[in-house]
């Protein structure tokens, strides 16, 4: 029986697929895509075995020595616990779906096998990150994920926006990664090991008030630094700017980034190191505040965007904010649960959006409308994703969102609660707006040519739709041995299914009313929108301009970074290049030209110099000997 000790194979399969696809891809069916899909499918099957093993035998971790450096042992290893296995399932499943979808979506691209190679590498990096049992391995995988996202966002590098978006994503997340590295090193300095379990032990000692290697000040700083790293990858304000631009990559890539790999990494990191955050409770308040701010800002921006993919991008940021808020409110289970339900729903939405682009070649929702008539399946898939994320009961998003609301209610100030309810309303509203504007209403003439997605694109959408509908039901208590997801993923002690009727009903009513309002505005047209627009004009214009953050960053780069860089470049050219490097070379050359005339080639000249040397040596020896 294949058990959890083979879990390392899951990322390794994808890593092996990468060079295989690039070198030998053309000899395989599907020009190499079969290798990637095969590796991912095998990974998903392995995940099922690991999951079964975990359920019957409990969590475990495996660690293998890598090498010693001055008494510090570095290890390769992996953790098998509910957290890592859940994300493992999410990543393998979504990546598998995305790759199957891509076969059809990317079929005419000239760099088809490069695309699949990077896809496999991306998935492998993310899986390594999820399984890593020590911070060093995690950091390596973390950077690989960043690299792969850079390569995929900039996949169409002939297009300038794609290149700029790729650079933006890489640099923004890289800035945050520095903080993560410093945080890891801080922990290493006090604990003396990169091992997560040892670090968490110390953090738990600190929490219990016992004698711990960690000091509370360092723990707070390290937690905040790790959180900054997570903010970069999970696109929290003010690091969120890269994510909306990341849609310049192929749409399936967006699905992967938004649902399974890149942005999930930040949430996963905070969840994985949750003990450290708990040991410094102030950090959790900051996490909650950042999450709340992100969710509100992104929701308002999603409401005013007109590009289908940008709406989805801001929606992702908003939901990531919700997850951070949940983590910051001790809603560990809720955050991971929401990460998964959101992952399935958002992957579905992006695949549906990709299908729309594939069908009509447009992304602006104002040019759409009535698409349900030409692509009913896509519309259905998008609708399911929208209601799931919007928080309509029974659909997946509702259950996880409800758990988040519950933890915010239990652990944070009522103001948080009010604001998060506003965000919930907004998120339902923008999802409804996107759906109604794009798929309902009148079908315009130029879109009549649109066609439904081919089978290879439809199948992943159908499978993801099923999950988006049903996955949330895992929250419920089904049997005597399974008390809802809270008894499976938890940080200290499991809890059964909790449901606050008023809260659940309230949020359901909010979401439903948002959908109804959107219906009235955008489909029926019975409620005019202009009074709202006039009332909230300042906020709307700010949201449309992305709260000026992008312009601020651009201004900072133009006025400070580029000016400084120009100075450095000048310094390099004048001092390093002309004076130091060329100067040394020039002086050596000149002295060589002068000195070479002393190389006569005459034997007796050389002999004379030799004799002088010998006599000088003897005289020196003499002086020393006589003195001694």
């Amino acid at each position, binding site marked *: 029986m294949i058990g959890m000790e083979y879990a390392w194979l899951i990322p390794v399969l994808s890593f092996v697929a990468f060079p295989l696809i690039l070198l030998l891809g053309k000899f395989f069916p599907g020009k190499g895509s079969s290798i990637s899909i095969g590796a991912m499918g095998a990974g998903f099957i392995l995940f099922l075995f690991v999951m079964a093993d975990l359920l019957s035998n409990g969590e475990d971790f495996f660690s293998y020595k890598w090498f010693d450096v001055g008494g510090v042992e570095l290890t390769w290893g992996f953790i098998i616990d509910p957290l890592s296995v859940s994300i493992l399932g999410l990543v393998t499943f979504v990546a598998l779906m995305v790759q199957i979808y891509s076969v059809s979506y990317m079929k005419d691209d000239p760099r088809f096998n490069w695309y699949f190679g990077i896809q496999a590498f991306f998935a492998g990096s993310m899986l390594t990150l999820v399984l890593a049992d020590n911070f060093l391995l995690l950091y390596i995988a973390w950077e690989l994920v960043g690299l792969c996202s850079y390569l995929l966002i900039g996949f169409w590098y002939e297009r300038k926006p794609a290149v700029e978006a790729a650079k933006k994503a890489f640099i923004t997340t890289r800035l945050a990664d520095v903080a993560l590295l410093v945080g890891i090193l801080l922990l290493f300095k006090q604990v003396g090991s990169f091992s997560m379990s040892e670090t968490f032990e110390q953090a738990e000692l600190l929490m219990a008030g016992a004698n711990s290697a960690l000091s509370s000040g360092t723990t707070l700083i390290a937690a905040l630094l790790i959180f900054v790293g997570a903010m970069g990858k999970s696109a929290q304000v003010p690091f969120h700017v890269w994510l909306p631009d990341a849609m310049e990559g192929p749409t399936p890539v967006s699905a992967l980034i938004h649902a399974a790999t890149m942005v999930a990494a930040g949430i996963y990191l905070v969840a994985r190191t949750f003990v450290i955050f708990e040991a410094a409770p102030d950090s959790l308040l900051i996490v909650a505040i950042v999450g709340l701010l992100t969710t509100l800002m992104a929701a308002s921006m999603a409401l005013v965007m007109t590009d289908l993919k940008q709406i989805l991008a801001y929606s992702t940021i908003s939901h990531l904010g919700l997850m951070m808020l949940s983590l910051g409110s001790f809603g560990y289970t809720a955050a991971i649960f929401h990460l998964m339900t959101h992952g399935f729903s958002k992957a579905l939405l992006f695949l549906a959006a990709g299908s729309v682009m594939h069908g009509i070649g447009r992304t602006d929702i104002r040019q759409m409308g009535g698409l349900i008539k030409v692509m009913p399946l896509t519309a259905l898939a998008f609708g399911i994703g929208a209601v799931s994320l919007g928080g309509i009961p029974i659909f997946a998003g509702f259950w996880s969102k409800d758990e988040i609301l519950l933890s915010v209610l239990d652990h944070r100030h009522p103001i948080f609660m009010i604001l998060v309810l506003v965000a919930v309303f907004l998120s339902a509203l923008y999802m409804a707006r996107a759906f109604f504007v794009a798929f309902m209403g009148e079908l315009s003439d130029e879109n009549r040519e649109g066609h439904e997605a081919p089978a290879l694109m439809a199948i992943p959408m159908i499978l993801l739709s099923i999950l988006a509908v049903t996955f949330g039901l895992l929250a419920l208590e089904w049997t005597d041995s399974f008390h809802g997801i809270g008894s499976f993923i938890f940080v200290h002690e499991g809890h059964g299914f909790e449901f606050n009727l008023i809260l659940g009903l309230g949020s359901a009513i909010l979401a439903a009313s948002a959908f109804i309002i959107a219906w009235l505005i955008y489909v029926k047209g019975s409620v005019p929108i202009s009074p709202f627009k006039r009332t909230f004009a300042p906020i709307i214009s700010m949201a449309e301009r992305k709260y000026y953050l992008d312009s601020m960053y651009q201004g900072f780069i133009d006025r400070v970074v580029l000016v400084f860089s120009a100075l450095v470049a000048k310094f390099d050219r004048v001092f390093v290049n002309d004076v130091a490097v060329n100067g040394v070379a020039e002086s050596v050359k000149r002295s060589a030209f002068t000195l070479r005339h002393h190389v006569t080639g005459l034997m*007796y000249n050389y002999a*004379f110099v030799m004799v*002088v040397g010998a*006599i000088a040596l*003897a*005289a020196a020896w003499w002086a020393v000997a006589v003195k001694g």
Partner: protein
Amino acid sequence: MTWFLFILLSVMVIGGGLGVVTTRNVVHACLFLLFSLLAVAGLYVVLLAEFLAVVQIFIYGGAIIIVLLFAIMLTRSEEYPSISDNSQWPLAVVAGLALFSLLTATFVVNSRSFEVMHRVALTDLGRNLFTDWALPFEIASIVLLLALIGSIVIAKVERRR
């Protein structure tokens, strides 16, 4: 008597040597060399090393000088007077004097009063050479053989094709 012989032979050695390094005539130089080397052999006799004196006379006087004369004969002897000394000879004088003073100073400062000379029995020398020094002796013979072959190879006239 020993003193007188020593001084006489020393003057001959140094004088011959100076003759070698100063004369412009290469054949004279060769003869000066012979003169000096024979005087060295005389000094060996003063040192009670008659066997080495005989060896010195045979090898230097009989072989090396002849080879040198042959070499002079086989090369273009008319150019020798014009190419005897090079332009750095004053420096060479300084170097020679410096070395001489350094060595002399060393010998004078470190002189220990060894005053008794020992006569070496030729049989002992031979036994020693062929027992304790047998391996170096064989190697020396190989060196000589190689030098012989090497000289022939280097100096051989190549057949024109």
